[in-house]
């Protein structure tokens, strides 16, 4: 296997004495480095996102590494001798989880109009107009585009044409800070060429998404629902300009509508359902929960292609991958006592960022994962939906999320993205080329915070970014 998967790695401890103390004393953590409580790992190398929760006992680690292997190895075209890993497609985006979640980290959009989508994808839908549509929205979040479904899959197995070739081009938008310094943002524009299954619906809604990092997902699942809902303020009754709405999504296991936590619009309730959805949508692998291939009625060859078993990923292997995705650790913060970091942290608060990027939670009990339960964590998210303004709007509702709303993404680990993934592209479609650009794209409920950042002088802006990079 590939070498660095076990957690040795070249990490070093900044203040060694504190760590073992935190292990024995979950009672929290005055140690602000421990973003994931006792699960926190101290690795600042390229492997920083790929380690198991630090407190995962040695007897619990085999499932992690088994899951990791299935996360990394390619799925192949059925039928194949590799019977447990066949069933790729017929239509798909990529053949491994890791292909998009590179090093368990963050994907990026194509950087120019000639580049393919490698770790990003395009979601599709049409407006819900009928009662039948409403039923689809209740169960799947969207009304799929009639010919192409709810996600564009540029690739097909031999004999099945990929759906289309997505391309991004960028338009430059200029702006200025109060101190006169100018900046340029890139606004992506999507085009779809080589449509192989007919015209797109005239009212098609599209949304470009990059793969999010995989760290700390189990901890987010372990945050008690009532704690999340306490922060919801859908009608902004407290008048702070920030609403915060929970998405309410369909749980396939429970066959009812529940709180959404995962995905750019919080459209999945659990790590398991999110992971199964990704197998099905991104790789064309059927799962227990998503038993149907992604073929629309006009995609006959797709429908006729041989499958790799029903489901193509067994419940047993799915469980291992889910275990892996649930226990990937959050790396510790760096430089927490640096005066510039502390200044940036204070600015982050005074600019109102923490109204949505909520720093601290105590997790509840997560069944089957004592390691993740009752941990003091610092994810910097409220897991709620917020109107982020016209600039970021994709105009594509998903369950109860509007076309202007996005879930507050967690910020833990964000300062290590460059080390792990070799880029600094942020936001749902990766349009921001660095953290400051990401901040400047905030609008809607975050407009007041953005205005404060525009008023900051250079040293303050730098401190804010230095703080974010310490996460």
């Amino acid at each position, binding site marked *: 296997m590939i070498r660095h998967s*076990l957690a*040795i790695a070249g990490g070093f401890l900044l203040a060694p004495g504190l760590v073992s103390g935190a292990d*024995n004393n979950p009672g929290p953590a005055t140690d602000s480095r421990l973003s994931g409580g006792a699960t926190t790992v101290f690795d600042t190398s390229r492997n920083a996102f790929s380690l198991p929760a630090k407190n995962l006992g*040695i007897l619990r680690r085999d499932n*992690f*590494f088994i899951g990791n292997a*299935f996360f990394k190895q390619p799925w192949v075209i059925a039928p194949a001798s590799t019977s*447990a*890993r066949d069933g790729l497609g017929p239509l798909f985006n990529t053949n491994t989880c890791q292909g998009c979640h590179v090093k368990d980290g963050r994907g990026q959009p194509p950087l120019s109009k000639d580049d393919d989508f490698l*770790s990003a994808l395009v979601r599709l839908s049409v407006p819900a107009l009928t009662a039948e549509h409403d039923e689809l929205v209740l169960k799947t979040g969207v009304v799929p585009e009639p010919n192409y479904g709810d996600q564009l899959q540029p690739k097909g197995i031999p004999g099945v044409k990929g759906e289309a070739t997505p391309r991004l081009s960028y338009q430059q938008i200029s702006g200025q800070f109060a101190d006169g310094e100018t900046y340029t943002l890139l606004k992506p524009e999507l085009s779809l060429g080589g449509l192989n299954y007919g015209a797109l619906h005239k009212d098609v809604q599209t949304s470009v998404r990059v793969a999010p990092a995989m760290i700390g997902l189990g901890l987010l699942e372990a945050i008690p629902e009532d704690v999340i809902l306490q922060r919801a303020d859908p009608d902004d009754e407290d008048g702070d300009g920030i609403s915060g709405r929970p998405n309410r999504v369909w749980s396939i296991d429970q066959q009812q509508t529940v709180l959404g936590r995962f995905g750019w619009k919080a459209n999945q309730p659990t790590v398991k359902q999110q992971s199964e959805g990704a197998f099905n949508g991104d790789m064309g692998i059927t799962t227990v929960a998503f038993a149907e291939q992604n073929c629309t009625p006009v995609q006959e060859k797709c429908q006729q292609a041989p499958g790799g078993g029903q489901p193509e990923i067994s419940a047993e292997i799915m469980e291992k991958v889910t275990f892996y995705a649930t226990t990937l650790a959050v790396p510790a913060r760096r430089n927490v006592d640096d005066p510039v970091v502390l200044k940036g942290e204070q600015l982050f608060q005074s600019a109102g960022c923490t109204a949505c990027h909520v720093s601290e939670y105590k997790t509840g009990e997560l069944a089957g994962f004592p390691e993740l339960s009752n941990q003091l964590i610092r994810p910097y998210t409220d897991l709620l939906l917020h109107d982020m303004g016209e600039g970021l709007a994709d105009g594509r509702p998903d369950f109860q999320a509007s076309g202007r709303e996005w879930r507050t993404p967690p910020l833990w680990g964000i300062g290590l993205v460059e080390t792990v993934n070799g880029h600094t592209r942020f936001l749902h479609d990766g349009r921001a080329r660095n953290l400051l650009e990401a901040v400047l794209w905030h609008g809607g409920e975050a407009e007041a915070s953005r205005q404060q950042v525009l008023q900051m002088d250079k040293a303050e802006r730098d401190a804010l970014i230095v703080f974010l990079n310490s996460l």
Partner: protein
Amino acid sequence: MIYLRRPVLSVALAGLLMSGFPAVAAEVSAKAVMETYTEIAHAAFSDSLATAKTLQGRVEALVDGPSEETMQAAREAWLAARVPYGQTEVYRFGNANVDDWEGKVNAWPLDEGLIDYVADSYEHEDGNEFAAENIIAGDEGINAELLQSSHEKGGSEANVATGYHAIEFLLWGQDLNKNPADTGSRTYTDFVRGEGCTNGNCDRRAKYLTEVTGLLVKDLQEMVADWEGGKDNYRKEFMALDENEALRRMLFGMGSLSLGELAGERINVALLAHSQEDEHSCFSDNTHVDIAENARGIQNTFNGTYTKVDGSKVEGPGLADLVAVKDEALSKKLIEQLNDSQQKAAMLVDAAEQGEHFDQQIVSGNETGNARVKAVIDALRTQTGSIEAVSGVLGIENLSPESSDSFGS
């Protein structure tokens, strides 16, 4: 297939003898156990180096005079080299110097199309733009620097350009399993220069093989130096560690290899996937040896014994003795469990030697083979439970990869 294999029995006897003399065990110090551990590391890496040098000589002979015989001799040397190396892998987890180094030496699985020609049916990691690069068919000068820079090229771990498995691919070729008993089917003619060269670029392929084998030797020299006594090196650093920290590294290495790596990723993944693509040494069908030797390395660490390739023994006070002072029953139990793992692995090895390679034992529907593989997994899991118990007895509270003083400040 011919290769050297440690006799299982001698190690088992050593374990029994040790537990028979509690009076000796009572005098055991942690420092002495650490000394044995480093001595065995030095011996096993030295054996790995020596066998790699033999391989290098055979590769030279193959490249200079390609023939059935020189090809076979090179393959046998590769197989022999895997025996001591497999026993060093227990040092990887717990010792950062080994773990950081290991990727260039033993990385797998690989997208072999990076290196050389592959069959049309070759599938690889999507988005790995170098998965079918075929360095050998390219025009960049082949030298050590090129190979090193191609390793993990483009950030993909599947781009393995160096180490044992890159050499394995060049000596065997893809195992397409047209016939279950087949290994990879590369012929010596792939190295014939001029007339008679098959699959093109034989001179570049020969150069690649020469360079990659040279790199392996060089890398192993580094690791031997890390464990040599009386030098300012990792061994010295290890011996200066707090005793508990040193024991933690030893036990974490044993436990990590035993369950997460060996039982989990190396065996269970292949079994769950029923797929040779998920086996360790897929080109040569040598995975059974990897499994048995990895497990033997764990046993070596606990018992404080190592049988060198030349048959001589390196022995000293082991963890087993140290544990016996505090909990003799537990020490005995783990010794027995380690023996049991060896026996279960030996059954897998025996089947493989009779032609039922690991990739056949894991295929869907081979219930006997699957059960044989499962028995190894179960034995490794059981012994890992005792490894954890042993840590508790020795006062190591948290058998985790990092401790407060693991890596200094």
